[in-house]
């Protein structure tokens, strides 16, 4: 653990937190050492391009987000499902509980999915999401982020997390980013700008690699 000068970390509602310590399951026959599989029936090709899901182009800065999914031993996670969801360029989710008074974009839903390839790579085209206020405190804004959901080959590798953008001035103030207490671990949630990944004249490239757990010992 690293001491930080950051904000009070988000802990979630107390009523939703476990009261007992987590139990480590150490069963070599556990069903969770395997996991669900997905295929071409579950994902269509346009699902990975969030800028082409409507008749017109969404507003905002078009980006390409790509990276490798691997396990802790460095093995690529192949053919597995990656799902994302995010706010539009104005910081508004296409979700009926989002009360943020920013415009919806008729050309942007903000949900995407793809399967990792033989090298464990995923790739999305989308727009950079906007910041949005939260927590009832109008001065507290979430930094731009994309929600990610990933599956490994074992159900224990299931991961839901958030990807952030480098250099965002809201990051050092964000209680949710600081819910990850270790400073080096927090940086693992921040993508890198990589012009090599930019599509010339079309999108800015960001690289974000993901390491899934290895499952029960």
């Amino acid at each position, binding site marked *: 653990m690293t001491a930080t000068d950051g904000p009070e970390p*988000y802990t*979630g*509602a*107390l*009523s*939703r*937190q*476990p*009261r007992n310590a*987590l139990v480590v399951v150490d069963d070599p026959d*556990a*069903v*969770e050492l*395997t*996991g*669900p*599989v*997905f*295929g*071409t*029936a*579950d994902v*269509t090709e346009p*699902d990975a391009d969030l800028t082409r*899901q409507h008749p017109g182009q969404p507003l905002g800065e078009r980006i390409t987000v790509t990276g490798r999914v691997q396990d*802790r*031993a*460095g093995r690529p996670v192949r053919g597995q*499902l990656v*799902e*994302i*969801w995010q*706010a539009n360029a104005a910081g508004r*989710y*296409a*979700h009926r*509980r*989002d009360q943020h008074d920013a415009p919806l974009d008729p050309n942007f*839903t*903000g*949900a995407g999915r793809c399967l990792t390839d033989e090298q464990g790579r995923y790739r999305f085209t989308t727009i950079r999401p906007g910041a949005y206020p939260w927590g009832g405190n109008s001065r507290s804004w979430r930094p731009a982020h994309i*929600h990610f*959901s990933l599956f490994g080959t074992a*159900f*224990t590798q*299931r*991961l*839901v*997390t*958030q990807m952030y953008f480098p250099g965002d001035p809201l990051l050092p103030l964000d209680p949710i980013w600081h*819910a*990850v207490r270790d400073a*080096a*671990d*927090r940086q*693992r*949630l921040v993508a890198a700008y990589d012009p090599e990944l930019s599509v010339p004249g079309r999108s800015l490239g960001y690289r974000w690699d993901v*390491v899934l*757990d*290895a499952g029960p010992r």
Partner: protein
Amino acid sequence: MTGRRTPPQTIGPYFGYALPRPDGGRIAPTGHPETITVHGRVLDGQGEPVDDALLEFWQPAPDGSRTGAPGSLRREAVGGAAVGRDGVAFTGFGRVATGADGGYVLRTLRPGGVPYLSVCVLARGLLQHPSPGRT
């Protein structure tokens, strides 16, 4: 040599238009005579219903196989609409969002070889790695 894993973060309140899919809780093939219904509610520590949880289930097929099958989250190939399951394949995977009363319903077949279903509970404010538990 092992690296550190990418840390988890809260799923937040807005996954509803991205993750749940039609027929998510209907693992059993359509009309299968041995279909079982597993149902219940997700409650918080004060007994209040959790209306924004997502439950995921993973299990062996009745014959004990653990390979699973694609097709839990099917989309129509041309138009891209979420069309639900084909009602034939047993995928072993279910995904159900809770309702306003915290309730969920899963229709499946008994797992072969083990007396449990693996469950992953995701909800706003849960910060731990979504470690699967068992029912």
